[in-house]
């Protein structure tokens, strides 16, 4: 498996998905070699991690963050290790990805009899997978967690990245999309043959109880946004929504959790619209605080412009929080009971929030429905489907 990041050095969903997926596959007797472009010192029981980097450097995190997350890392890292790729010159991104491809190839050659196929995650790993496919004739499965069209909704994303995605998807023997939403993008924007695409939804790992946690802001309804503060995630629409909801529910409290390139402009917009004590910004939250907020939320809103999957919505639902999901998301295919809306449709979302806060029967119905939706959303199920794809490519 060709990866790019793995917890704890993940910028978001990709690393988390790789963790859940490989654990479940290992449980179903799959032997995995997992390559990373940085030194991974931790020992994992379920698979073998192979560091693939040039000998001159010793990175302890991905050379750049694939999804431009402003990532607070728990470990000591040199700043050069954590470059946001959008700040890197194009040539450097290409160089990094090509270096990784060469290293993966040389490791892959050494192990050539130890594996049957190559399973690669997103564009950063596609060049490596293509090399193994060409030189060693291993089947190549391209797993798409996110595309350049999602990340840069304006359509002015990186040509190099989009091209790498296109080439990888064209060369791949099989493509796994994390949602039907993504499958559609792959067909329409990347012209991938429908028959080549398999939709396999991510699972979600079961959550532990939070124990006794003081209930903050207990007097007010709390509505939460959590995600990177980039155009893709639609935080701007969340502010508009807050303004609209406050007209009828003046004591509603909105919380924006996350960081990103829109952070400062969102704060200015917030103050400019006189929302200062009604919409509060927490910055990036992780672990316990993240769970406490998702659990405390009376409503969770995900107004993404384009969301291939949207794990955080599932995490909120796992905590018994009703979720409003964007129609442009993969997660709505799983959370069928959750109210959905166009990310720009403030009126619809306002009414949904009002109903969820004021109509207890409706609220209960949504929560129960979501719980039911979550039942099949396991990594075990995802792994079973992935193994079917493995069998298909091995046969052909």
């Amino acid at each position, binding site marked *: 498996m060709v990866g790019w990041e793995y917890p704890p050095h993940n910028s978001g969903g990709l690393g988390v998905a790789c963790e859940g997926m490989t654990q479940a596959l290992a449980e179903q007797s799959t032997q995995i070699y997992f390559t990373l472009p940085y030194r991974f010192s931790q020992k994992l029981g379920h698979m073998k991690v192979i560091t693939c980097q040039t000998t001159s450097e010793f990175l302890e995190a991905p050379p750049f963050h694939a999804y431009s997350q402003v990532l607070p890392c728990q470990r000591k890292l040199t700043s050069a290790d954590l470059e946001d790729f959008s700040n890197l010159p194009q040539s450097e991104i290409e160089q990094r990805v090509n270096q990784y491809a060469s290293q993966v190839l040389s490791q892959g050659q050494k192990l050539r009899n130890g594996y049957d196929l190559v399973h690669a995650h997103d564009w950063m790993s596609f060049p490596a997978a293509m090399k193994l496919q060409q030189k060693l004739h291993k089947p190549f499965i391209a797993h798409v967690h996110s595309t350049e069209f999602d990340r840069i909704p304006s359509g002015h994303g990186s040509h190099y990245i989009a091209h790498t995605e296109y080439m990888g998807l064209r060369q791949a023997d099989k493509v796994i999309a994390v949602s039907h939403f993504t499958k559609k993008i792959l067909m329409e924007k990347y012209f991938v043959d429908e028959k080549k695409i398999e939709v396999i939804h991510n699972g979600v790992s079961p959550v532990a109880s939070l124990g006794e946690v*003081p*209930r*903050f*802001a*207990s*007097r*007010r309804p709390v509505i939460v946004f959590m995600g990177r503060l980039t155009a893709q995630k639609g935080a701007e629409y969340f502010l508009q929504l807050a303004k609209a909801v406050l007209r009828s529910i003046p*004591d509603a*409290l909105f*919380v924006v959790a996350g960081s990103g390139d829109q*952070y*400062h402009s969102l*704060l*200015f917009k*917030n*103050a*400019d619209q*006189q*929302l*200062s*004590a*009604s919409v*509060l*910004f*927490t*910055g990036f939250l992780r672990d316990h*605080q993240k769970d*406490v*907020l998702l659990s405390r939320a009376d409503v969770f809103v995900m107004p993404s412009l384009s969301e291939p999957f949207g794990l955080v919505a599932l995490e909120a639902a796992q905590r018994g929080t009703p979720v409003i999901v964007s129609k442009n998301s993969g997660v709505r295919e799983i959370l069928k009971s959750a109210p959905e809306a166009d990310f720009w449709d403030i009126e619809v979302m306002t009414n949904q929030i009002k109903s969820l806060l004021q109509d207890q029967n409706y609220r209960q119905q949504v929560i129960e429905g979501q719980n039911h939706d979550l039942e099949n959303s396991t990594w075990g199920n995802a792994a079973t489907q992935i193994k079917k794809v493995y069998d298909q490519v091995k046969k052909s």
Partner: protein
Amino acid sequence: MARICFYFQLHQPYRLRDYTVFDLGQKSSYFEEADTDLNRQIFRKVAHKSYLPMLGLLLELTKTHPEFVFSLSCSGIFLEQAQSYEPGVIALLQDLVETGQVELLAETYYHSLASLYSPAEFRSQVLQHERLVETLFGIKPSIFRNTELIYSNQIATLVTEMGYEAMLTEAVDRCLHGRSRTQVFSSSRPANLPLLLKHAQLSDDIAFRFSNKQWEEHPLTAEKYVHWVDSYWENDLLNLFMDFETFGEHQWSDTGIFDFFRHMVSKHLENKNSFVRPSDVIENLELYAELPIYDVPDPISWADIDRDLTAWRGNTLQDDSLRLIYSLEEKILSTQDEALITDWRRLQTSDHFYYMCVKWAADGDVHKYFSPYDSPFAAYNRFTTIVADLQDRLAEVKI
């Protein structure tokens, strides 16, 4: 041959605790107040570097030079913190006041911007300050200085109505129209309040440039400084207004700032020059009507290059925070809940809005030096989260 009028400002805000959304409704304090807290640490550090040694030096100078007089202004929350964190500061201030050579000025208790937002709140805070000064020092100030020397025609009216005899502010070129800043001015009519205007150049030579090695006049000796002062006429009034922390904190002891001050005072007196307090100036005024008018329709201050209010307001983060805090006035006061009112007033301290300033250029460095936050955005987030809690407490009281 000029008169020097010194005024030193003593102020420390109550800095906010690291308060997050998870604290909302948990009844946790907004301010650093525990035994090991930041406010105590900062206060004690500054006390040992500046307050104690400089107050000691001033006391010594009043003894050796009975003609040496000056003025001080202490915010109410400075005095409160001195009482709890470093009572020696209060004792020294009391000794100084007892010499009769020091004049204490009036100001808002919370070092707030209330003069710009609420006349009623402004008056309450000024009276609260007056009561504390009277309790601690047994005197009632007659001269007013507003937070950061903020001044406008309208504020002059407020201050006159409260019965103060004069006010201190900044000499700003756009209001002086070429007139000399070394004379006493009057506020615009009908207030006719005498105004003492800060001599920025001579003040900042001490307050900002003293230890700057890039400055062509560095090192500044007492002789050189007094020579500059001597170039003025006998009737010229040199208002040297500055932060008290200039001595020992902004300019560290090893820059020689204390020795400079000691010698400067002696030299100035040796040259048959005098020191005056603001009330001495007013006493010797003949006819108010003859004073030139200092017309200030838009508020000015002593801050930054522009001497305007952009250090505290003007960006939307600041403006909306200020709007919020003053929008609560009527409801907060009607609760008569002392704890709630005190928290609300402590949140009015100008420093909270200063930390939200996003001006870049040279002033940004000064702001950064004084701010406990990583960024103006962090200051805004913390402040607004606390206001959200204040609103909740207000809602609870009303039930």
